[in-house]
């Protein structure tokens, strides 16, 4: 075997642990979207919300631009969101957004580590649509949560 082929085999072998690494919770866990209901005419349905999360719809029904707060790879909701919304896993979600942002199609989402961070982002910017891994114990006023 040539040195080149040997190195290729070694490289592939080194990659295998990444492929079979544990991915955490998948389709079984809950998933919620959170958004401000302060703006007028803001009555999105589930399909509309999903298109926003997929970067296909750029604005709310009231015309304001959508901003997104998605779970980062440190969040328990990372793979659940990747599975339920993006049809794969957390990596699928990240890649779709990397592709969109650097194709010039969309503004980058905020990838946040915890549900509390996502809620904070929604409170700070009323045009943010956030993804949560669980229903908050106490819901701040002016915020609406829907299960996906």
């Amino acid at each position, binding site marked *: 075997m040539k*040195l*080149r082929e040997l*190195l*290729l085999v070694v*490289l*592939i072998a*080194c*990659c295998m642990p*990444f*492929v079979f690494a544990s*991915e955490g919770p998948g389709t079984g866990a809950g998933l919620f979207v959170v958004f401000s209901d302060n703006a007028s005419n803001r009555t999105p349905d589930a*399909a509309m919300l*999903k*298109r926003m999360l*997929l970067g*296909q*719809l*750029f*604005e709310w029904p009231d*015309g*304001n*631009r959508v*901003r*997104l*707060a998605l779970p*980062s*790879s*440190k969040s328990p909701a990372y793979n659940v969101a990747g599975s339920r919304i993006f*049809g*794969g*896993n*957390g*990596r*699928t979600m*990240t*890649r779709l*957004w*990397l*592709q969109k*942002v*650097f*194709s*010039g199609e969309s*503004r*980058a*989402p*905020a*990838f*946040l*580590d915890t549900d509390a961070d996502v809620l904070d*982002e929604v409170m*700070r*910017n009323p*045009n943010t649509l956030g993804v949560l891994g669980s229903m908050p114990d106490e819901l701040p006023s002016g915020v609406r949560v829907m299960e996906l």
Partner: protein
Amino acid sequence: MLRLVFCAAVALHSSVALSESNHMTSNSGDNSFDWNIYSHLEGYLNDIHSTQGKDDYFILGESTFFLSGNFGDELSILYEGTYQPKRYRDDVLKSERWQIRYALPKNHYLIVGKNHTPVTHWNDSFHHGRLFYPSISRPLSLDKFVPLHDSAVRVGARSLGEHGFFYDLSLGSGHRYENKFFSNGVLSETVSVGLQSEIGNVVRLGWHRNAAHRVGHGITTTPLEFHSNHHLMGGMVAHDHPEVLDVLTVIAMSVRLELGRVELLTEAAVSDGSRDTENNRALYQYLGYRLTDNIVPYAVIDWLKLERGLGLRAGVESRSGVGVKIMLTDSADLKLESLRHRDGTKNNTPAAVEFRMQLSVSLK
């Protein structure tokens, strides 16, 4: 060789480390900037060891640098440049795209600048970073008779209505002048329409017309020939004495489907020229099966029939075979392919069985 393997290991390590952090700039605040670098290593072996076959290689592929910025909710900019060492291509640095995008009401937008011609799904969806390509190589038709770039003014919309109708209308400078913004007026037009479902299934029809000046003493170029010569002949440019307009029309259809674990991408294109010998045809067919969320074996067929063009001979080029895409991390992929490749557009290159490996990474 060892240096390249070392680079691969460093790139993989970097992508793992970075994948653990947040991937993109926070969208808080009105203005934001973001950057990224995509790169890949590519290995190639074939079963023909003659002077006519390609030599085996293991190279650093095209590295792509991105800079994007948002100014408020409506205005954004994007720059895409590529780098490849001198020994692999003539132009070490190239500006691939620069564009200013303004978000219009009702999911519409306006783009001004050098952008990817939206005539096919592939060209409109994938940038130069190889990480997102479903197969190692892009369809053979791209940059042959299906145009890659255009300096243009483009208006379009996404997700109109419940069926996700979208469209793009673009007026451009033409391929000869893709780096000279409307220096000779409007020489290309593109219309693209389609439907995109919620899960990303896409059907798209594209129409593109491009005019190019016939130049020199009876020397003519197809619209993309100039562009291709620029690549193939070390930047050789014909003398610029506009006399006659040659027109090339491209019609393309793209279908992207996800049916459970099955992924399908079809890119078909035909062209018709104002001269008799420009009827080109191409078909790219990808069929993948998501074995796990991170492993996708696939089959690919890519076929191109050129009647004329590009400084290459007329003829048929085809690639077909199988491959596997392994998603290593959020930002690193390994693709392996075994293809039968026949290139009748070059000097009777015999068919060869090729083995390709590509490690593609995003550094962010």
